[in-house]
């Protein structure tokens, strides 16, 4: 989500300023934002892969990873996604792509070094669950609505505030700011919910909730020891990562794309108890 916001925000500022100074109306603006959302839908996977320095790998280059994902695909009843590897020490993984057929699953060399095979399997199952649940598509659409609200807000900022005799400019501004804030929060909540969902699906597909738990613990532990410049580099990519690169602070929870680690571990532990038949 951070990436989505970052890219959208960047495009916005440029386009909105350019268009407004050229005297464009609301209709034109809507078309432009719709176009940008579509472009994001179609280009975000390539952009994300490039930002991470990830390369698609063939079965010959990464036979183990391919075979692992193929088996998970049979279990999850999914077509095989493209598989990419990013050469970085940050232990992470993410999924991109607007549809199941166009999906790309990426792992970093760091995560492949850090985790045991069955832990990596849990993480890849989590990313495949994002693919299965159409999370990229849904979050892009969600961000489109937030974008429209934001556009209305910017529009009224430009035209509502320049001293005309109508009070409606201020009302529009306040209303759209409120809409934007609410839709932004809802979007983050939706994202957090979908992370839980993906954890759950991953546990079901592998049948090993505890393997994903130990993977999450290892990754979050390793995250804090990674050098700072790597963390900053990773900051933009948080949205589709399995664990955001920095997890601290409790007020941040509300503004976070991912649920807190303890909550995720707790839910996985509950799944494990259900599986073992020791929970009511």
């Amino acid at each position, binding site marked *: 989500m951070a990436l989505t916001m970052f890219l959208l925000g960047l495009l916005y500022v440029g386009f909105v300023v350019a268009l407004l100074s050229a005297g464009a109306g609301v209709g034109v603006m809507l078309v432009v934002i719709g176009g940008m959302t579509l472009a994001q839908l179609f280009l975000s996977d390539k952009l994300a892969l490039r930002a991470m320095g990830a390369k698609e790998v063939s*079965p010959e280059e990464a036979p183990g990873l391919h075979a692992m994902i193929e*088996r998970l695909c049979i*279990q999850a009843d999914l077509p*095989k996604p493209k598989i990419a590897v990013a050469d970085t020490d940050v232990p992470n993984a993410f999924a991109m792509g607007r549809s199941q057929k166009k999906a790309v699953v990426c792992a970093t060399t760091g995560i492949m070094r850090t985790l045991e095979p069955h832990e990596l399997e849990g993480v890849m199952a989590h990313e495949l669950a994002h693919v*299965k*649940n159409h*999370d990229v598509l849904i979050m892009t659409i969600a961000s489109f609505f937030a974008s429209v609200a934001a556009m209305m807000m910017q529009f009224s900022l430009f035209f509502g505030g320049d001293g005309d005799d109508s009070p409606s400019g201020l009302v529009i501004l306040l209303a759209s700011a409120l809409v934007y804030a609410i839709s932004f929060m809802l979007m983050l909540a*939706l994202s957090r919910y979908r992370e*839980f969902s993906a954890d759950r699906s991953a546990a079901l597909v592998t049948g090993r909730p505890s393997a994903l738990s130990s993977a999450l613990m290892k990754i979050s532990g390793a995250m804090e020891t990674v050098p700072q410049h790597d963390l900053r580099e990773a900051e933009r990519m948080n949205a589709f990562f399995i664990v955001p690169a920095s997890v601290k602070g409790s007020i941040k929870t509300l503004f976070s794309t991912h649920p807190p680690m303890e909550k995720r571990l707790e839910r996985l532990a509950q799944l494990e108890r259900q599986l073992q*038949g020791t929970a009511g």
Partner: protein
Amino acid sequence: MGFLDGLLGGKRQLKGPAPDRLFAMTTAQVTLETGLGLAHRRKAGIVFQPLGTADFTQIVTETEELLTGSAEDTGTKIETADDEFGYRWLVLEDDEFEDLVVSLNLISTQLQSGGYGDRLLAAVFAFDEGGSPIYFIYNFKRGTYYPFVPSGKQSRDTERELRLKAQIGGELPIEEDASRWFPLWEIPL
């Protein structure tokens, strides 16, 4: 999938097995043998995810005992192997092809009646063409077969697989979506 399921993140359960079409292999084997000259390798296998739960272990043990019991009549040999991906293989060996299919079906129904049908990955039948193997893999989730012809470590003969589809497609429910023809490397058959 309902709208809410879609919005909130998919089905709550792992997909279970499709209606069983495992037995389609029994008739197809006759055609493979007489029509195409492909003899079966007297071996078949089933591969599943072993779960680390007490009742799952018990079901597998019971199934193996059941197989050993019926093996006294049929002469089927059973071997267990764990592969490097953490999956378990039950490999059956029998001169009678039909006994192989019946035994595989026994294993899958045992796991399904124990509530673990969703752990079944695939069943594999091995045939022989000039000394190298041709596999037919049965995907339990989709209830379909697909051919798999390895031509080396990590490489497969897709042309031969497509020809096999054309040759046997009338009798075997072949997976239409070739992107689901997942390889299984180093099949212990």
